[in-house]
């Protein structure tokens, strides 16, 4: 058996080979990449591998422990599912970007030093942009640029933080950092931006729904989860994260309820779920950290499942707005069932995956006597059922009959959704397997009577609230519009900034151009053009006046001399005279 290689290598090399493989071999090759990667991963022992010297530092490409391994497993699993789902895609750009993106995520989680982590972090950003631009629409182009700008700012922040931190400590080790100086605050902020913290989150809800159908599956799995991993690695127990996470669970609910684009509803739901993870990392106990990473594992699966079901609808109908869809269960029954499995999982129904992980974070909050935080998380649990658990399947597959009768999703999409759905139910029914992979030993028992009854109550009352809101006509109408969120600041603020800059900088530019290009330079050009004849005429006119020339005769002489000097057609005598005068002047002046 050959020695294992860094997991990133398999994906990146695989991506580079994609353009050279044609026909039906391509599908087999694409599917083989995560399979080979997974076999490679399980052959890697815990410890530090692939250490490379760089300047005075040691770059570590393989820091393998239970935390990085758990993310490694799920990243391989979701890569396989996403590739299976994408088998109809002929566009190499999407395939290569997806593979490099997955490889970068693996590179980042196994990096043991901040420098290589930063490189993979930026590769993650660059490759993900192509999954957005690959849709090749005006909206995706704009969203991609906004995504790029935001992540470039976040990346620079992270880089500045790393530089300051390394300068202060002399160490590039990527381990526990804590908030203890400007450098770590900047790193914290950089991680937070990719985590879609409140007010920094709009890149996610802006860009993810504009990506390609398959691109969104990849996007939902990696960027935010790598950031969650980074926070769990570097800032566990940081109190600020408790509040940040709690706010993240709460505020997206309101936007999700009024959103018409169902993939954007899921994007808001993604922030909501990441909020549970961030909150758990902030609480920082073994139960909370276990809950956070366990929920990350589950969220990758059920969120991908929901995005895949919406993607299948988009693939068949070309529509994704709630106003356009409805009644699709008639012709897409399997997609509908898979969507409902994803909805039940994200809503934490008993026997579905969300139930066994979300409750760990909530119990950790309750165990820490954080009543208000626990209450926010409880509210968010009801809210997520409302928008992701009910709204998504209801408006897509039931609700009013849109009249569309599309075909069922292609077989490879159904297989991908089936695998994800199976895993959601398997983990929900037999959580012990996932619990055995968590970073800390697990004593948590999810299936207790109070927990099952309490959660079921919460879900059924949420369903009752949705039903009553809908039937009483209070539920907000689905409208074809753009709901401005915190992106107001750069969508509107950006225009204002452009207006102000246009009016100030461009005005200054015009004034400077008028003064220096049209003014002084023009004046000097005009002067230099006829300075010699003017100078000569000063003396000549005096001479002609003294010799009796007046009126038209004087004007004629002036014109003749002026033109002769400009054209260089002077009589030899005058030329010689001027040359002599010039020499005399030089002599006098020197």
């Amino acid at each position, binding site marked *: 058996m050959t020695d294992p290689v860094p997991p990133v290598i398999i994906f990146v090399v695989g991506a580079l080979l994609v353009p050279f493989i044609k026909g039906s071999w391509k599908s087999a090759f694409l599917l083989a990449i995560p399979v080979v990667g997974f076999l490679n991963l399980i052959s890697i022992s815990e410890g530090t591998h692939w250490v490379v010297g760089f300047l005075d530092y040691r770059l570590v490409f393989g820091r393998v422990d239970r935390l990085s391994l758990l993310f490694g497993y799920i990243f391989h699993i979701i890569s396989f599912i996403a590739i299976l789902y994408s088998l109809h895609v002929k566009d190499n750009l999407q395939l290569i970007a997806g593979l490099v993106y997955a490889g970068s995520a693996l590179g980042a989680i196994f990096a043991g030093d901040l420098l290589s982590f930063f490189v993979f972090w930026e590769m993650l950003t660059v490759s993900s942009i192509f999954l957005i631009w690959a849709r090749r629409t005006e909206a995706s182009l704009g969203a991609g640029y906004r995504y790029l700008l935001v992540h470039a700012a976040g990346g620079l922040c992270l880089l500045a933080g790393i530089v300051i931190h390394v300068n202060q400590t002399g160490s590039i080790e990527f381990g526990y950092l804590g908030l203890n100086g400007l450098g770590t605050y900047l790193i914290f902020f950089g991680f937070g931006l990719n985590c879609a913290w409140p007010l920094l989150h709009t890149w996610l809800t802006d860009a993810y729904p504009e990506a390609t159908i398959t691109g969104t599956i990849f996007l939902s799995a990696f960027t935010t989860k790598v950031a969650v991993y980074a926070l769990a690695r570097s800032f566990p127990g940081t109190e600020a994260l408790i509040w940040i996470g709690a706010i993240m669970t709460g505020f997206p609910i309101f936007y999700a309820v009024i959103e018409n684009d169902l993939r954007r509803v899921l994007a808001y739901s993604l922030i909501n779920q990441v909020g549970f993870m961030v909150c758990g990392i902030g609480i920082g106990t073994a139960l909370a950290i276990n809950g956070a990473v366990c929920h990350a594992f589950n969220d990758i699966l059920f969120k991908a499942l929901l995005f895949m079901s919406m993607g299948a609808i988009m693939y068949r109908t070309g529509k994704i*707005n*709630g*106003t*356009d869809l409805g009644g699709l269960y008639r012709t897409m029954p399997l997609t509908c069932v898979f969507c409902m499995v994803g909805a039940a999982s994200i809503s934490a129904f008993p026997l579905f995956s969300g139930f066994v992980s979300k409750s760990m974070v909530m119990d950790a909050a309750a165990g820490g006597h954080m009543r208000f935080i626990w209450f926010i998380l409880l509210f968010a649990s009801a809210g997520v059922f409302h928008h992701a658990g009910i709204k998504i399947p209801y408006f897509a597959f039931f*609700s*009013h009959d*849109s*009249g*569309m009768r599309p075909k069922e999703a292609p077989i490879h999409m159904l297989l991908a959704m089936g695998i994800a759905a199976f895993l959601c139910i398997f983990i929900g029914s037999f959580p012990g397997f996932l619990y055995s992979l968590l970073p800390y030993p697990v004593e948590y028992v999810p299936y207790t009577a109070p927990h099952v009854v309490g959660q079921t109550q919460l879900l059924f*009352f949420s369903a*009752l*609230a949705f039903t*009553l*809101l*809908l*039937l*009483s*006509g*209070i*539920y907000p*109408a*689905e*409208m*074809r519009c753009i709901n401005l969120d915190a992106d107001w600041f750069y969508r509107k603020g950006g225009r204002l900034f452009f207006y102000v800059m246009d009016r100030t900088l461009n005005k200054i530019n015009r004034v400077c151009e008028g003064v220096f290009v049209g003014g002084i330079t023009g004046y000097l050009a005009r002067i230099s053009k006829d300075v010699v004849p003017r100078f000569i005429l000063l003396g000549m006119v005096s001479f002609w006046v003294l010799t009796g020339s007046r009126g038209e005769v004087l004007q004629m002489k002036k014109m003749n001399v002026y033109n002769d000097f400009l054209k260089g057609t002077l009589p030899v005598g005058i030329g010689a005279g001027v040359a002599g005068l010039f020499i005399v002047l030089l002599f006098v002046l020197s």
Partner: protein
Amino acid sequence: MNERREEKMELSHEPVPGYRTAFFIAITIGSLYLGLILYKTLA
């Protein structure tokens, strides 16, 4: 046939008679129940 459907600008939810009253009754009972629990918890 290449059928072109008119895209809706708004999908509103028409109220069903009687349910608005039911909604407000449920909200009132729920709020009172929640208030009672909070009072008993914090008191």
